[in-house]
């Protein structure tokens, strides 16, 4: 069903390796393949150290790919590209950072923080136009124009994160990489920021790559989910499909770990611990294969047969 949508960003066989001083390079991301369609919220979930932030940063071109490529609207954006393309990509892909306390320049006013992108690309006619744009960006995220002359340390975490969102939005991007935008926030204001992100998405027709480890949040916000484990994408599916028919044992274990706000369910809950080393690794090398339209799972042929049987059983049960 998703085949008739426009592919906005496409990651093809991407590897990110870091030199950690040893003989072998450390592969943080291994052969990642996925597409993000225009207008959707695509989530990357996985535990800490699984490489989800690294993928986000590779798309932002902070981390270089050691293999593979990233296409944005059909054009390659990884590796060396021309200056004009570079400027275009910077404008069209923006990032929201995890830690609102660390991602704003403490020595600059909010006005400068938000105008930074405008200054860099001279996206304003005159001073009055720039101030108007900043005021509008602040209003869009529910802050006041009078905050312009304030410094970041005078704001609460939620307000700072909204400044970070305003700073990205003012560039009028098409894709936003949101790297755990709410995990550093107080629980009471998480919903506020998520609702704001959803509101802006509808208003401006944005596409999100949402990086998170909290499945309850991911279920609330995303259209499709990719589960990543140890740098490898193990399953991609639409949100409800993934929650209904999880196939890969890591996905199942991840779903079983979601806490339920009901003591009776929690008491009976069986935690499924996933252990990579205890799995049956026989057969050929596994790859990401499509088991149902839009539902991908990382498996080899032997595992595919097992998953197929399991899926049919689950579908029969409904």
């Amino acid at each position, binding site marked *: 069903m998703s085949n008739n949508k426009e592919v906005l960003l496409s990651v093809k066989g991407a590897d990110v390796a870091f030199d950690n001083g040893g003989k072998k390079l450390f592969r943080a991301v291994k052969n990642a393949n996925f597409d993000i369609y225009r207008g959707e919220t695509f989530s990357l979930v996985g535990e800490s150290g699984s490489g989800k932030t690294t993928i986000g940063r590779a798309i932002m071109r902070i981390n270089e790919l050691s293999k593979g490529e990233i296409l944005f609207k059909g054009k390659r954006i990884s590796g060396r590209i021309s200056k004009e393309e570079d400027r275009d990509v*910077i404008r069209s892909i923006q990032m929201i950072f995890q830690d609102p306390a660390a*991602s*704003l320049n403490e020595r600059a006013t909010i006005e400068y923080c938000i105008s930074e992108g405008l200054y860099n690309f001279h996206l304003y006619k005159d001073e009055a136009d720039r101030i108007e744009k900043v005021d509008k960006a602040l209003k869009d995220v*529910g802050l006041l124009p009078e*905050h312009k002359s304030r410094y970041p340390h005078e704001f609460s975490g939620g307000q700072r994160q909204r400044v970070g969102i305003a700073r990205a939005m003012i560039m009028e991007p098409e894709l936003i990489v949101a790297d755990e935008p709410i995990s550093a926030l107080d629980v009471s204001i998480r919903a506020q920021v998520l609702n704001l992100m959803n509101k802006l998405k509808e208003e401006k027709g944005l596409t999100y790559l949402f990086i998170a480890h909290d499945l309850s949040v991911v279920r609330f916000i995303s259209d499709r989910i990719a589960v990543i484990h140890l740098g490898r994408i193990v399953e991609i599916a639409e949100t409800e499909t993934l929650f209904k028919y999880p196939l890969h044992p890591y996905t199942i274990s991840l779903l079983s770990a979601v806490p339920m706000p009901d003591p009776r369910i929690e008491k009976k809950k069986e935690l499924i611990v996933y252990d990579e080393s205890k799995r049956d690794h026989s057969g050929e090398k596994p790859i990401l294969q499509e088991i149902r339209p839009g539902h991908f799972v990382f498996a080899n042929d032997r595992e595919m047969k097992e998953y197929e049987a399991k899926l049919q059983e689950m579908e029969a049960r409904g």
Partner: protein
Amino acid sequence: MENNNKEKDLFSFADFDEYQSEHIAAPRYSYWKSVWRTFFKDKFTVGVAILLIFIISFAMIQPIFSGYDPMIAPNINNAAMKFQSPSSAYWFGTDNIGNSVFDAVWAGAKNSILVALICTAINMVIGIIVGSIWGFSKKMDKWMIEIYNVLSNVPFLLLAIILSYILGSGFKPLIFTMTVTEWVFVAYFIRTQVMIIRDREYNLASKCLGTSTWTMITKNILPYLISVIMTYIARIIPSYISYEVFLSYMGLGLGSSIASLGKIISQYTSFMKGYPHLFWIPVSVLATISISLYIVGQKLADAADPRTHR
């Protein structure tokens, strides 16, 4: 009756106001105003700062009126004028050639302070510019670190001796000697500081917004470094004064035609036994300048750190 009224007025209902929930009630924050407020809160430092300003301006102005020149000694043949004790006519007494020690000390202090300030300014400007680019560029780091290794391992005294042979002695040659390799230490210090905060998230954010390296240095990095740079300056001005004193003491500094604290101290050391005040007066002037510069500089550096702002 009165009591009843009070209870009624205890509270009244208010409507939810979005403006009020986002409004920041605290007064506006201004970085430099807070720096000065923090600085002036400490009365002792303010006293030292006033003393320092007085000493420096006195050292700059007094020699104009006294017209002291170490090469002129009108009383050299007048035995009665030599080694006078401090008096109302000669506040610090007179020396072995019958000149006023008061005039000599202030003329010397003027040149020593000038040398220190000029060298600090030159080294800081070159060091900050080179160091901040150095900290950002991995390519530059590869060869800059070699230059640093070479320059920082040149023995300073050896360099001073050779340069004084080549360039002679005087004001400009001394400043050249004290800046030709010294800037590299400032640059290295700044490079390390830049590397510490270069990869912080807010700099990544700037990079994602397409900010150029130079704008990142001036807007993101250097404002953070104000307080460490202040601390550094507070440390090197006094140390440059002692460098000058040391070089002049060794005969490599300003030369015999220009008064300097170092030369006066070395000249008067030989009268330590008979007339100790001749030695102790220039030394205590030197110590007062150095210590008060250090205290004021440290306090300014503390005040420049926004974490101390209340």
